[in-house]
């Protein structure tokens, strides 16, 4: 510790160089910290919006393929299933706003509270949703976006079914989760019947399982139940269902990680270069220090401490800045999109753990960069160095 002022003085000797090196290290650590949030961020986001006891049963061919409505009853009969809800894509477009679309689904109002108890929908709203044929429950974000109020009437043109229906909003889903507009299946079915067509299919059957331990069993049974039928099914947990929507970000993350790796390497070169320069410049001084009795370990220690101190300080600042940086990205991407799959990125947070890892990495960069030149300087025979001087 008593050498600390000496180390600091040495760092302040060439302020521009120190600033440039520190800036490069700080920025690199900042980036690395941000990227470290990516895999965990996606996972955390998925865990947050999904339940581990909710399972999606859909056609094996994909969610755009439907299944016979009769499957709903059969899935309900699987042991361990507490509630099921058939979901049909309504594809409603909001006329008044220039025909914008948002996810809208027709489903069974009776089972909403049992399948999605974690959505915390007001019991009164659920009751109205059950009783009023034209009732709709809307996600809070969608309500805000179009400035809808509870009790308001909204007309949606279906882009899938040949109908235009008017709904009365009876409640909101008090979080920002997936479904944005829920309507009664029966209402859609009647509108279709008026045109002589039957609504006898279902897109996704949402299943709530009594116990997380039974989830795998329920999924296996559901798949086995419809094997070799005209519509074979795939069952997956809600988390895995939504994970496939974010899967496309994976390759971007990979490329960005490759580039980050390159930048980190680049920064290591820079730091090493700076350290070796600092040593070279001070050849004479080091020789004098050695000649007046400072040991090799002191020379080595102070030089390594110099590069480590710089890297750690700069990296620390960079790591802490990631708090601000991730907040900025959240603001930017949140403003430019309306709830598509990239909305996932708005949930990314830099945790203390990541800041700690960033700082640890900067310590390593400082050590690695400093060791080689410091080793060389400490080992050089005093006489040889002094001879160069005089």
């Amino acid at each position, binding site marked *: 510790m008593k050498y600390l002022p000496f180390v600091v003085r040495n760092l302040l000797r060439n302020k521009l*160089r120190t600033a*440039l*090196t520190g*800036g*490069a290290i700080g*920025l*690199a650590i900042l*980036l690395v910290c*941000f990227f470290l949030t990516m895999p965990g961020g996606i996972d955390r986001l998925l865990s947050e919006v999904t339940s581990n006891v909710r399972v999606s049963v859909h056609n*094996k*061919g*994909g*969610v*755009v*393929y*439907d299944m016979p409505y009769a499957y709903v009853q059969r899935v309900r009969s699987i042991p361990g299933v507490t509630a099921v809800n058939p979901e049909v894509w309504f*594809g409603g*477009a909001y*006329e008044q706003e220039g*025909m*914008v*679309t948002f996810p809208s689904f027709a489903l069974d109002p009776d089972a909403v509270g049992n399948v999605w108890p974690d959505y915390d929908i007001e019991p009164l709203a659920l009751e109205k949703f059950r009783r009023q044929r034209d009732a709709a429950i809307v996600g809070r974000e969608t309500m805000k976006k179009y400035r809808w109020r509870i009790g308001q009437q909204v007309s949606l*043109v279906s*882009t*899938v079914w*040949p109908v235009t229906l008017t709904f009365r909003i009876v409640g909101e889903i008090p979080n920002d989760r997936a479904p944005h507009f829920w309507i009664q299946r029966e209402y859609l079915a009647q509108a279709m019947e008026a045109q002589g*067509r039957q609504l006898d*299919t279902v897109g996704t059957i949402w299943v709530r399982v009594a116990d997380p331990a039974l989830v795998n069993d329920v999924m296996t049974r559901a798949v086995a139940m419809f094997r070799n039928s005209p519509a074979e099914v*795939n069952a997956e947990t809600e988390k895995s269902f939504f994970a*496939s*929507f974010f*899967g*496309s970000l*994976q*390759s*971007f993350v*990979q*490329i960005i990680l*490759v*580039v980050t790796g*390159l*930048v980190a*390497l*680049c920064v290591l*070169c*820079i730091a*090493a*270069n*700076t350290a070796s*320069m600092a040593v070279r*410049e001070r050849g004479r001084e080091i020789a004098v220090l050695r000649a007046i009795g400072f040991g090799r370990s002191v020379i080595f220690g102070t030089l390594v401490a110099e590069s480590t101190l710089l890297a750690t300080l700069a990296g620390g600042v960079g790591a802490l800045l990631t708090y601000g940086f991730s907040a*900025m*990205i959240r603001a*930017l*991407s949140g403003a430019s*999109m309306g709830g*598509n*799959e*990239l909305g996932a*990125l708005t949930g990314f947070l830099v945790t203390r753990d990541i800041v700690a890892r960033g700082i640890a990495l900067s310590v390593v960069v400082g050590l690695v960069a400093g060791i080689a030149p410091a080793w060389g300087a400490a080992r050089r025979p005093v006489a040889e160095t002094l001879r160069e001087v005089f």
Partner: protein
Amino acid sequence: MSLPLSYSVRNVRIRLRRTALTIAVIALAVVASAVFLALISSLQRTLVSTGSPENLVVLRKGSDNDGSSMLTLEAYQAIRFFDGIARDAAGQPLASPEMVVQPTVWTTRGTRENVLARGVEPVALRVHDQVRIVAGRMFRPSSGEVVLGVGTVGRYEGARLGEEMPFGRRRWRVVGIMEAAGSSFESEVWVDVRELANDANRPFPFSGVRLRVAPGADREALIRRIEDDPRYALEAKPETDYYADQAKSSRSLYVLLVVLAAPVGIAAGLGAANTMFAAVQARTVEIGTLRALGFSRGTILRAFLLESFGVAMVGFVVGALGTVALAAVIGAALGGIGFTAATFTTNVVALRVGAGDLGAAFLFAAAIGIIGGLLPAWRAARLRPVEALRKA
């Protein structure tokens, strides 16, 4: 009196290790910035370059993409004979009825992606003149055959010429491969429209119609006529506008990439300039000596600038080669970058390093060379020779 060029060259050679380090740093900075730029431009090329300005996309009113549209047979039959639609030699209108579904397909890596399966009739190849069959042939209607966009080949289970690709409710025989100038048609799978409708259990076989506007015809009048027809509630827009609108949903990704690329560039630039700076600054004594020998400030400045610029250019060349190699490695390892558009279907984006990307990286490297060389050389050249020499 000017310093001979050989002075700069020799300098580089004597300080070989440091020069190599400088070159490496600049090369890494070039690779980092060029890869990011290439990522952005590749994404843009795939998403925005799709479609032809002579084509119209006709969808049910309110559908923002053809995955969520439906069109009745009678609507199709009516509009295909409207005035202003191009016709082929046999007098048939160049109107391609199409249906789009997004089946889940397994990649060869064991992950799932939603592929855009487009049900078409053979006329589609004449309407989409971007699309060419480059291997095999077009499918025959009602025979369970498919044609693959080149981006899907090898990416998905069974997605190879002559193999069978499972999606929807059945397996389909791959009989042809199509290319479409890097546009998103290359990420699609084309099937007979009626077979696909049948497979997907769709009551209406068509989700939309693509029309080719006749040369010289009034496009706006045709659009008005389609949209004003009260019987069908349709809307029409130029195909290029349609894909440009689709690409809007990925804007936030550009914002993200730029926000990431900027600090990458700054970090790399700072470091590279620093390294260059150091290379010049370490030679203050030498500069003093040169001044004492009678070389003018301008001469010294020019010589050092030339040297640093030359080193930066070597760094650029190394970096450019590295970028191309890295893009090739990424291409081989990932096979094209899957990017899910707003319609939940996967666009396979080929990471291609364009001249523009390398041009921007060149400017970046040149700036590093000039700024990194100029400032310290200027500072050193301004020192009085005596002072500079005293530093020794």
